[in-house]
């Protein structure tokens, strides 16, 4: 038989096969399981609530907060300038431009850390850079930024500095507690109170 006809028959058979099978639309993961495990172990994906609060207050243009909860939860409460990408639609093409870029710093958050971490894992495995997770999620955000607790008088200076910052952030982000608003209605008076505490702490230390 003519070898050219054999070749033609072979190619047509391959063509029939490729026409009959469905297209492979699976997205390929770029990181191996081991690489991902290393990243998870190092906890590099977490951004603390203080860092995020600082960036929001300073209107840092490089962050993009991404709420991975459901749209109705997003409606009820969300962080300033956050966008809503529910976890279920994280793979839709509509969001690829947002998630796969190297300009902004995307920070996923959910109520806890679970959903945000899942979003991070999926996007990380797709090889996307610049995605992070808000440590502790909104619960921890409420606990630390919205309603910061005064540290014990024996705590180190750092704790007071952190508390000062959190109180300021809380006021700036509109999350001041009843007691806070009761004590001080103006921002300017707050730092004075804080400084007094610091002095006390210093005196005790000596």
């Amino acid at each position: 038989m003519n070898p050219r006809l054999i070749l033609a028959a072979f190619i047509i058979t391959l063509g029939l096969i490729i026409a009959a099978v469905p297209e492979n639309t699976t997205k390929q993961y770029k990181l191996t399981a081991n690489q991902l495990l290393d990243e998870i172990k190092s906890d590099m994906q977490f951004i603390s609530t203080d860092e995020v609060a600082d960036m929001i207050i300073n209107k840092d243009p490089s962050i993009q907060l991404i709420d991975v909860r459901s749209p109705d939860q997003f409606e009820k409460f969300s962080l300033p300038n956050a966008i809503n990408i529910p976890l279920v639609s994280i793979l839709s093409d509509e969001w690829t431009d947002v998630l796969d870029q190297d300009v902004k710093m995307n920070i996923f958050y959910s109520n806890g850390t679970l959903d945000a971490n899942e979003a991070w894992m999926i996007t990380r495995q797709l090889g996307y850079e610049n995605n992070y997770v808000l440590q502790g999620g909104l619960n921890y955000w409420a606990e630390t930024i919205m309603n910061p607790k005064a540290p014990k008088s024996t705590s180190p200076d750092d704790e007071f500095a952190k508390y000062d910052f959190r109180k300021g952030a809380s006021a700036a982000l509109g999350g001041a507690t009843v007691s806070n608003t009761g004590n001080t209605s103006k921002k300017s008076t707050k730092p004075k109170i804080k400084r007094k505490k610091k002095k006390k702490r210093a005196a005790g230390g000596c």
Partner: protein
Amino acid sequence: MGPLLPNELISNNTNFLLAFIIGIGFGFVLEASGFSSSRKLAGVFYGYDTVVLKVFFTGAIVAMLGMLFFSLFGWMDLNLVYINPTFLTSVILGGVIMGAGFIMGGFCPGTSVCAAAIGKIDAMFFIIGLFIGIFIFTEGYPIWEHIYKAKFLGFPKLNELIGISQGFFALLLIIAAFAMFWLGEKAEKAFPREEY
């Protein structure tokens, strides 16, 4: 896994090395198929020799099948494969200019280099003409920039434009290719030339 370069499985330098080896292979096949003869190349326009059509279309359908099967087996992500952007006006204009140059000079850019490498003087002149063309285009770029960039269609795929699956389109293309091969060979018999 693949494509190798976008997935950073190979470095840019390795990529150039592979391109160099593939380029030499390409030149070898061109020469082995007799593409360094301008008479053979021009034959496709007159119908007495359609080997150009057969070689290039065979190359195209083999590469197409290879990529589709690689994608099917999960060896290659077709979304990462570079697709040339389509500027409709420049495609048509460029096609006409390229076709005119092909039929007048008897070479296409690749085969002219191939023929020059084996010492064909007409091919060397062809290459000089090629560089004159490049010079005119680049120096006059501001004049034809608006034509060059007119009717941008994005990165369309034929099968998506028609609305069929890529596998089915591949099958149609294979059948079309074989139909053209058959027609080409008919033409070779209809317009024979003794010596060229």
